[in-house]
């Protein structure tokens, strides 16, 4: 597949970021309403979440780059979405709303990540290692060097879309699909990061370290949840 990163009118990256927010926030709004969150609270979440998500995405990249440059970190964005869920649920003050909003956030985040990675694919960033096998991407254009790379962004798009669909299926079958979706997403991101060009020369990247922390945190929460249920 050949992708020319030059564009005539609007660059695809911000368009896909906005689309990912649109899809994710619409889904979260509908799920929150269905689960009993008040309409006004669900609506205010759609305003607060993009602001906090983009802000924390920028902050995390700024910190990880050693205060050198700004960027949009997906894990920072995830932290922003969760922070917005927590903030709204705490402001609303109704018991049980924290769990509902965090659950719906977790279910929709894979969809948002999947769509945003299409922007990275078309923009030529977060690209894969040099690769000449099947399904390789050939980047051309004035914004990137001409290169044949592994289609890691496309792989992420497909896998995270599947994780999202799995989450939607699981929530009809089991009471709490959050741990499965969360850990699967973190493990997938961790493994695919090895296929990224930016991973060259590193044993484990900053993003992978964050993924490990997230996996560990969720496993500790699972442990305490099970212990509380047994008590």
């Amino acid at each position: 597949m050949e992708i020319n990163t030059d564009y005539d009118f609007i660059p695809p990256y911000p368009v896909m970021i906005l689309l990912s927010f649109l899809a994710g926030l619409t889904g979260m709004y509908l799920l929150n309403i269905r689960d009993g969150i008040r309409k006004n609270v669900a609506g205010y979440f759609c305003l607060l979440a993009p602001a906090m998500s983009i802000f924390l995405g920028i902050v995390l990249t700024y910190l990880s780059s050693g205060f050198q440059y700004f960027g949009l970190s997906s894990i920072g964005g995830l932290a922003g979405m969760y922070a917005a869920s927590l903030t709204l649920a705490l402001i609303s003050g109704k018991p049980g709303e924290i769990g509902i909003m965090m659950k719906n956030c977790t279910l929709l985040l894979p969809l948002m990540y999947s769509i945003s990675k299409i922007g990275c694919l078309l923009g030529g960033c977060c690209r894969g290692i040099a690769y000449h096998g099947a399904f390789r991407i050939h980047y051309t254009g004035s914004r990137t060097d001409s290169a044949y790379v592994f289609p890691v962004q496309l792989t992420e798009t497909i896998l995270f879309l599947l994780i999202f669909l799995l989450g939607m299926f699981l929530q009809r079958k089991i009471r709490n699909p959050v741990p499965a979706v969360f850990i699967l997403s973190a493990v997938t991101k961790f493994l695919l990061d090895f296929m990224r060009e930016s991973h060259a020369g590193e044993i484990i990247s900053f993003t992978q370290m964050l993924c490990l922390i997230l996996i560990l945190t969720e496993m500790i929460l699972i442990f305490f949840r099970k212990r509380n249920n047994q008590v």
Partner: protein
Amino acid sequence: MYINYYFIPGCTYSPYQGKNVIFAPDGTDEDLLQQYDFQKAEDGRYFRILTEQEYQAVKRGYPNNNVIFSYENSQPMYHNPNRKTSKKLPDFIPSPSDSETENQKDEKGILISNILCIFSFLFAAIGTILWTYHDTNIDFLVSVGMFIIGGILALIVKIRYPENILGTILFGVYTVLFLIAMFVIVKLVAFMVSCCMACL
């Protein structure tokens, strides 16, 4: 048998999601339900999680008796409609002492909501000044953080004290500014393109 929960008669008790709750009858006014902290379940019914005190009170009488919570009595009453009783069942009228407590709560709420509005405006103002005169990237990040904190304070007023007009105005202004910021295409697009090259 039923549980008459203050202004919501005809509720039924049932454990739900591991908690002791009462379900309101279908067709009850939703605004009234929200005032009494009823939440919507997945099947569309409205339920309220009972406090420990309320649960103990329900357990003592239900399901053999109707349980009646009212403002006229500090303890709920139990009434078995199959037995004659000389007790006068309460009407759903709030007592004068409850009105006084409500007035005090209103005054406190007005004060708190106005203080939150002032702080919200201050944070937004500091954010604006830093944004206008920022020299370093840290200033830029701090200014955006200030806007977000100001917005959250306005959200607290909008959700907890919806009758506060100042809070509504502030929230409206922030919303418009936020939407404008999202549509500032030239700077945002250029910024995001440079972000794309640095995204993780």
